């Protein structure tokens, strides 16, 4: 009879199995993490355990004495989690999934590579998995089985990024804007940014650009107080909307997100700004609908005008590239996971 291998199991809840309202209740805030580890280690007597907690997933990994023991622990774990989160056991059962043995290894590999993420192929998840593993190691909860699985998952994720298109291209409006700005200006730390309007979309793109180093930000709004308020929060400078035409030539990136019936930036204003920039490109992102910038300005030399449709089209194209890579990636990761599992089973 084949060796059944170590009794590794996983009880988890992700965006695929639970709505946001349930995930919010199942989430493990840092102050509750120790309680969860105590539950797994002491109450359930698991020699190895790990908690992976991100915005979209809560996953509890454990190594029982045998696969049969793991199956028996499932009910107990659901009851304990229900009690801890003040949920009905039926609810927890409904919105969670349970995996064992080789399926757990395959799942970890997929998660680390971003295959299971809400935004397919995102890279943050690998950092989060590494952090969770480091935390479990520090608590003395990771042993030979979890060590091998998680360390191998980091290698598998690296393989996927290097050899497939799973992480290629920006797939959100903000990251597309960052990619385009980087292709024009390189490092964004010296780029001057002008945000027109204080709406949510403009703020999210501003945040993406700031995360890549853009520091010199000016914010204009129809209501000066709103510009001041956002500028205070973003360490930026507030200005009147009437000053925008004069600021165009001094800016490298202009984010337009103003709710207006007619364009607020004309082709003539942009032509005038371009003529004073000595050939330096001016990146204009029109996020507003109706548009804030006269569409014919796209014909001007050194003006790179992108609207919401342009950014969305690029993001969708990149997403399709990633989706096309999923099957190849999954098959190879499953192969790699199988090898790791077989090696673990042979040792057990």
């Amino acid at each position, binding site marked *: 009879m084949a060796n059944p291998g170590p009794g590794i199991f996983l009880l988890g809840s992700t965006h695929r199995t639970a709505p946001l309202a349930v995930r919010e209740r199942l989430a493990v805030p840092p102050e509750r993490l120790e309680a969860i580890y105590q539950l797994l280690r002491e109450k359930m007597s698991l020699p190895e355990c790990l908690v992976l907690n991100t915005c979209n997933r809560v996953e509890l990994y454990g190594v029982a004495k045998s696969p049969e023991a793991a199956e028996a622990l499932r009910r107990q774990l659901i009851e304990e989690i229900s009690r801890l989160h003040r949920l009905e056991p039926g609810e927890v059962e409904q919105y969670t999934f349970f995996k064992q043995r080789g399926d757990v290894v395959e799942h970890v590999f997929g998660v680390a590579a971003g295959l299971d993420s809400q935004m397919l192929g995102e890279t943050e998840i690998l950092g989060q998995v590494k952090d969770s593993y480091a935390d479990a190691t520090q608590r003395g909860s990771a042993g030979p089985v979890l060590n091998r699985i998680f360390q191998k998952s980091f290698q598998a994720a690296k393989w996927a990024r290097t050899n497939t*298109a799973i992480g*290629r*291209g*920006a797939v959100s409006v903000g990251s*597309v804007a960052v*990619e*385009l700005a*980087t*292709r*024009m*200006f*390189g490092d964004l730390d010296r780029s001057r940014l002008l945000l027109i309007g204080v709406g949510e979309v403009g703020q999210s793109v501003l945040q993406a650009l700031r995360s890549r180093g853009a520091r010199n930000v000016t914010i204009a709004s129809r209501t000066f107080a709103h510009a001041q308020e956002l500028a205070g929060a973003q360490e930026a400078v507030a200005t009147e909307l009437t000053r925008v035409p004069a600021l165009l030539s001094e800016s490298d990136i202009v984010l337009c997100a103003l709710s207006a019936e007619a364009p607020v930036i004309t082709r003539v204003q942009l032509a005038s700004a371009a003529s004073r920039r*000595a*050939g*330096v*490109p001016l990146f204009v992102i029109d996020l507003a609908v109706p548009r804030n910038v006269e569409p014919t300005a796209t014909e001007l*030399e*050194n003006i*790179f005008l*992108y609207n919401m449709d*342009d950014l969305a*089209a*690029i993001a969708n*194209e*990149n997403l399709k*590239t990633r989706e096309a890579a999923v099957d190849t990636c999954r098959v190879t990761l499953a192969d790699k996971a199988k090898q790791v599992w077989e090696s673990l089973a042979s040792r057990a």
Partner: protein
Amino acid sequence: MFENPPLDFLWTGVAFYLAGFGYALAAALRAREHGRPAFYTLIGSGFAAQSAGLYLRGLETHSLPVGNAFELLQALAWVTIFLKLILRATLRLRLLGFFAAGLAAALGVISLFMPSATRPPMGVAEAGNPWIEFHVALAIFSYGVFGLLATTSMMYLIQRRGLERKRTGGIFGLLPSLAELDSLNRQLLLVGAWALSVAVALGALDWVQQPGGVSATKLGVTVAVWVGYLVAGWMRWRNRLVSTHYAWSCVGLFALAILSLWPVSRGHNAVVPPASTPPTSRPTP
């Protein structure tokens, strides 16, 4: 093989440049950056083989191997790769090696199919005169810098085209930014123009002493190329020639400079010297 060792080495060098270019192209087509160790091994091997070939040709005439259009193109390819390898730490621009390898391979292939490739080598006149040798070396160096400038200008134009057409992915994501390329283009033109100016000044000193030694064609073409780059540099400095116009000018001027090698290499009373006798020609860009 080994019937003409210098030529064999030069063929080998070009083959390595082509291999390096092909290797990087295959990676670029898959929207990936090429592996540096493999790429630089190929380019370095090509550079070593080409150096050996040029050295052996130089030994035959006891002077710099830049006696005809074939040798001039080979020397240009050599300088382009030399600059990329030597200035690797400074010019850390993605895909620059790929484009430089492409240029060197193209120059090498064209040169090897020229009739002058199989003719006996010709040397530089007054081969023992260090100022003339320095003049020639500087002129070739400046043309190499202009070759690199044409390369970075092409990269600028491709990146810009992608942004204008709203194209992402593929090679566009791998190319350096417009700002980096524009900054490098200005520096390369400055370095190249200075080097060529000094070379022209040294050549002029020699010409004043021996006015009949250089033909009017060679003189006219050389001065036209030199003035062309000076004007482009001045206009860029005054912001009158910017972005695409500047990049196209750099590409166009280099094409003109390459084409000028034919009249320049013929613009003297060329005498094919027998091996081991001092040459009498003065073929320089």
